[in-house]
C-alpha cells in the first residue's frame, strides 16, 4: 500500500482546512466500506486519505419537524432512530450488521448503483443535504445533488456534512428486491411517500434505486397518480409508467430488461403495501 498519510481531523473546520490544503488529491473517507475494498484491491491508490469518523458529524437529532442526520452517522444509528420509520427500514435492508456498524449515511449517497438503498429512501422523503466548504455552506435538495453516474454537485473543496429529513410525510413504503433476502445488491429498490386528502393522492414521491445512474424519482408515474384515489387501476398506471420511464442498466445481478420489469412489479407492490397498511390501521382503530 502506498498511502503516505492518514489524516483524522477532530472537527469540521479542521477537516475543511485539510481538504483545502491538500486539494482534490485527498481521498475523503467516512466508514470506508466503499473506499477500503478499492484500496485493498489496488484499484484506488491514494497518497493521502482523510477520515471523517472523528470530525464530530455523527449525531442524529430531531429538531422541530426535521430529522438532522450527521453525514458520518452510521447505518446502525439510522436503524436505531425511531423518528422516521422509512429510514430505519431502508437502513435495516442495507448490507450486514458489521458493515452497518461502519458504513455511514453520508457515504450511502456516494455509493454507485445498485448501492445507495438509504439514499433512495431519503429521496422519497424529499431530504436536503448541507454541503460545507472554505467559502461557506449551502443546502440543496438531494434530487439536485445527483448529476450523473458517480458525479454530484459537491465541489472539490466541499464536504457533505448533514442531511435534513422533514418528518411529517404522510404514508410511506419501502421494498428492496435482491437475489437474496439480506446483504445483497438490489435488483431494484423502491421507496414511496404519499399524502392523501379526502381519499385522493395530493402528493406522491416515488424513488427508485438500481433503475438509473443514481437514485431517481419516477416523476411521470408520480404525476400520473396525483389527484386520483389509490385503487388498483391507478396503481397499475403508476407501475407501468415507472417501468417505462426508468433508466436501468445491466450488471452481474440483473439485465436491463429484467430490472425494468421488476420496477413495474415493485412499484405496484409498494403502493399495495400503502393500501394494506391503511387497512391495518383502520382494523386497529375499530
Amino acid at each position, binding site marked *: 500500500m502506498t498511502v503516505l498519510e*492518514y489524516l483524522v481531523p477532530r472537527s469540521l473546520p479542521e477537516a475543511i482546512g485539510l481538504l483545502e490544503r491538500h486539494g482534490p488529491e485527498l481521498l475523503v473517507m467516512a466508514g*470506508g466500506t466503499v473506499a477500503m475494498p478499492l484500496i485493498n484491491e489496488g484499484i484506488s491508490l491514494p497518497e493521502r486519505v482523510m477520515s471523517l469518523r472523528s470530525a464530530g458529524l455523527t449525531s442524529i437529532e430531531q429538531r422541530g419537524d426535521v430529522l438532522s442526520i450527521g453525514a458520518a452517522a452510521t447505518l446502525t444509528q439510522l436503524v436505531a432512530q425511531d423518528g422516521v420509520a422509512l429510514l430505519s427500514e431502508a437502513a435495516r435492508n442495507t448490507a450486514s*450488521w458489521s458493515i452497518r*456498524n461502519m458504513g455511514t449515511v453520508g457515504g450511502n449517497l456516494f455509493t454507485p448503483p445498485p448501492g445507495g438503498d438509504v439514499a433512495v429512501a431519503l429521496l422519497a422523503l424529499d431530504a436536503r443535504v448541507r454541503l460545507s466548504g472554505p467559502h461557506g455552506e449551502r443546502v440543496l435538495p438531494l434530487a439536485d445533488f445527483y448529476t450523473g453516474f458517480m458525479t454530484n454537485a459537491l465541489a472539490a473543496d466541499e464536504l457533505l456534512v448533514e442531511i435534513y429529513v422533514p418528518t411529517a410525510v404522510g404514508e410511506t413504503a419501502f421494498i428492496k428486491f435482491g437475489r437474496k433476502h439480506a446483504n445483497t445488491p438490489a435488483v431494484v429498490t423502491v421507496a414511496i411517500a404519499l399524502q392523501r386528502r379526502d381519499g385522493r393522492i395530493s402528493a406522491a414521491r416515488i424513488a427508485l434505486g438500481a433503475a438509473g445512474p443514481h437514485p431517481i424519482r419516477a416523476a411521470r408515474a408520480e404525476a400520473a397518480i396525483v389527484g386520483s384515489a389509490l385503487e388498483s387501476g391507478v396503481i397499475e398506471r403508476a407501475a407501468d409508467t415507472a417501468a417505462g420511464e426508468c433508466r436501468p442498466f445491466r450488471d452481474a445481478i440483473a439485465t436491463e430488461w429484467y430490472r425494468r420489469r421488476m420496477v413495474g412489479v415493485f412499484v405496484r407492490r409498494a403502493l399495495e403495501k400503502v393500501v394494506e397498511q391503511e387497512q391495518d390501521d383502520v382494523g386497529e382503530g375499530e
Partner: protein
Amino acid sequence: MGSKIITFVLGGREVEVMVKPMTTLQAVLRYQLGYTAVKEGCRQGGCGSCTVLVEGEPMMSCLLPVEDVAGMHVTTLEAITPADGLDRVQQAFLEHGAFQCGYCTPGMIVVSKALLGHNPRPTRQEIVDAFAGNICRCTGYEPIIAAVEGAARASASKAAQPG
C-alpha cells in the same frame, strides 16, 4: 510520512504496534500480533471471516485502518476462549456440529457473542439477520443457528438456577 505507533486494547491487554499509514486491523492482528483466528477471506467486507468486536460491536477488520481503533477495545476469538475449556458459545458450536472446515467459525463466534450480549434470547430471525454478513461454505447455516439457540438456552437455564 513514516510509520507511527498505535495503542489499543486487545482482549483486555494494552498493545502497541508500529504501523505504516492505513494498515488494516486485520493485517496488524494476523501478521504483527499472530492472532490468526482473524481470517483473510475477501478483504472486501463481503465474507465476514475477519469479523472482530470493536467496543463490543462487530466490524470487518479488513476495512478498518488500525488508526481508527486507537484507544479502543478489540476482541477476537482468542479473547473469547477461556484459559481452560471452552466458552459457552464455543461449546454449543461443538455440540451442534456448527463447523466443518472451520474457516468461518471465528467470525461466526464473535458475531454470536455480540448478538447474545445485546439480546440474550434472540429469535431465529434475529439470529439469521445477525449472520447476514458471514458466509459459510460448508454447514448450510442450520447447525450454526441451532448452536446459537442452544447457547442462549444454556445461559437462560444457568441464570434460572438458584444460588
